[in-house]
């Protein structure tokens, strides 16, 4: 178990701590992914949201899912957190397949941030962040320490903690949402267009901070966006999707230099045109 890790920010390649043999560990790290999707597909009513898909999410890296609206990127994210179940295929977190029986426990190892933050309006920022820790019966001391760490990490002023979500700005709400997601030190962080609703200035500064945080935590992150500049900024690995399929996977350079098809070049050029003219 990784209980010892739950409240530590500076995680040093988590898989290696569990592994007795160091050499084997390094090899495993190279080979095995934290999340593994095998032949996963999902249909809504009569339309396929996701065709049979394989994807591995590497440890310690930020993988960005990008594509036009309705391309299946959010579906993929929701499959991983277990909000929807796949029609076929398997999804595994660190080797354990997600089933209805263990999905509750697995969710606690995954942090989830959505566009509008998903903060509960009836709870203060503090109560939102501590909700799950309290539910699990963590000690006050433990929670207080962790909360201080998170405030420092996300540069969130402690005296705003007793405010309700409606009393916070959009950027502050996303910081609280991030703290809530990181509270239990999850192995995987899922971000569904977390900056999509923010104005450009706030967005730019938060992008910078988020990137620093991910690096500092060596956080395995799956980041969904439809903004190519954001994808390029965060993505160690970019996964481009269209019409329920992964079209190409690689670095931004790969996508630009060796586009798999016309859609890839069209997508990259359209967004670059918007971003740089």
């Amino acid at each position: 178990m990784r209980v010892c890790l739950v409240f530590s920010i500076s995680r040093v390649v988590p898989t290696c701590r569990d592994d007795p043999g160091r050499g084997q560990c390094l090899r495993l790290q190279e080979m095995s992914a934290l999340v593994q999707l095998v032949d996963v597909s999902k249909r809504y009513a009569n339309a396929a949201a996701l065709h049979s898909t394989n994807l591995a999410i590497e440890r310690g890296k930020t993988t960005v899912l990008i594509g036009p609206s309705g391309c299946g990127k959010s579906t993929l994210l929701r499959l991983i957190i277990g909000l929807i179940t796949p029609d076929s295929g398997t999804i595994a977190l660190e080797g354990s397949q997600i089933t209805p029986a263990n999905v509750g426990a697995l969710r606690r190892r995954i942090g989830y941030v959505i566009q509008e933050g998903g903060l509960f309006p009836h709870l203060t920022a503090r109560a939102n962040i501590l909700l799950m820790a309290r539910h699990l019966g963590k000690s006050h001391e433990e929670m207080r320490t962790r909360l201080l760490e998170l405030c420092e990490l996300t540069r969130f002023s402690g005296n705003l903690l007793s405010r309700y979500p409606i009393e916070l700005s959009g950027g502050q709400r996303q910081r609280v949402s991030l703290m809530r997601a990181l509270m239990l030190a999850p192995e995987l962080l899922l971000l569904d267009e977390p900056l999509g609703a923010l104005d450009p200035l706030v967005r730019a500064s938060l992008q910078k901070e988020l990137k620093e945080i991910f690096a500092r935590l060596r956080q395995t992150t799956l980041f969904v966006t439809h903004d190519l500049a954001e994808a390029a900024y965060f993505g160690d690995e970019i996964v481009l999707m269209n019409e329920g399929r992964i079209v190409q996977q690689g670095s931004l350079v790969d996508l630009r230099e060796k586009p798999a098809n016309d859609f890839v070049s069209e997508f990259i050029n359209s967004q670059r045109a918007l971003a740089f003219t």
Partner: protein
Amino acid sequence: MKLLPRPRLVGRDRRARRRGPNGLSLPSIILFVAVFSANAQPIVIGSKKFTESYVLGEIAKRTLNDAGISAEHRQGMGGTIILWQALRGRQIDAYPEYTGTIGQEILKTDRKLSLNEIREALTKFGVGMTEPLGFNNTYALVMRRSEAQRLGLHTISDLRNHPELKIGLTHEFLDRQDGWQPLRTRYTLPQQNVIGIDHALGYAALKNGSIDVKDAYSTDAKIAEYDLVTLEDDLQFFPRYEAVVLYRLSLPALALTALRKLEGTLDETRMIRLNAEAERTRNYEIAANLYFQGGTGSTTVAGESFWHKLRRWTLRHLELAGSSLLLAVIVGIPLGIIASRGGPSGQAILGFASVVQTIPSLALLALLVPLPFFGISVRTAIAALFLYGLLPIVRNTASGLQDISRALRESAIALGLSPMARLWKINMPMASRSILAGIKTSAVINIGTATLAALIGAGGLGEPILSGLNLNDHVTILQGAIPAALLALLVQWGFDLLDRVLIPKGLRL
């Protein structure tokens, strides 16, 4: 114990003849026996559950007391059968009765019996009967005095020559075996224009000329009040209902002598005046006093003060509305939670609650009364109010939960909270505004609807409203209606305050 509403304040309990012992079950009769058998010392006078019987019972008690005999009056014990059983079972020593009722209900004969025949038959039961007190309280047809004089009408037979007269009759009289149909056959009456109308409203209709003839009890207080005349029953169609006192033959001679002093002292006019006094003051003692004062003069209102009554009505009203609301909350919120999940069971719950709401409140009470557990009781009123309170709570709980955005519901799931924790820590608090609004609606509806509880004798602020309707007395109606309206406002304000406590601050900003 109040078992029946008083649909009219004067008149014999004719309905008892058809419905048996006024809906009372055997166990409650046994309870009666148990309660009253302990008391043997003073002479116990019983009375039936309507004004005239109360007044006669009170007069009998006073007469005994004036003769130096200790006596008490058990008021309004119920219908004929209960009083008769109580007399035979020695729980009471005497009670006022009517000869017609004795023949039909106690001796069960259709033959018209003479007083001596009745007396002889009663002896077998160890019961004696005084001579008639002087008045005959039977059904009668009444008209405005002016109209009767103008047309020269004195008897029911005279009506044959006036087919144009409009007749308004109580529904009971229209249906009775000894009511309108046989009466019309016996007298060969030509009138076609016959309508059914409530007893008290019928008097108002007669007064303002909407109808010309109506049925009445011959000692109704309204006959004097509205200056009406009774048409003589010249073919002796209506049985005679001479008022008498029935007593146990074991009654001490001294007491009997005192009671017999009442014989022949009360004619119709006098009884009408006593009834009127009782209705006006709503105090039977005052009406009885009038008898001893020689029938002159008026008296001041005493007894239970208005404020005392108001307190009693209001407390009962709150008890009815409060306990039904509590039940509706306890049952309605879980049902609302189930309904919020949709599906066939959710649809069924919302459908059921909606259907209940469409049943008129009177009909719902009428439907509940015959059920085994309910009957004429506070329970029935609470059950009906509970059913009415259910829909707003169920619907608001369901819609409050359904209105929570998908993003927030999924955030709670994604955090890994268990379904129970999601419900109580996240979803219920977020739906609290809607749920409280539903409870508030139910509370206000219940305060209003609880006034109908008086119809089945459950009391509350409906009591003065109902008596006011029966007496066509607006002041009495307002005595109940205004406090009920104020109560509804207070409840509304109370819940507005409660909102501030119960709805989380984050939802109120």
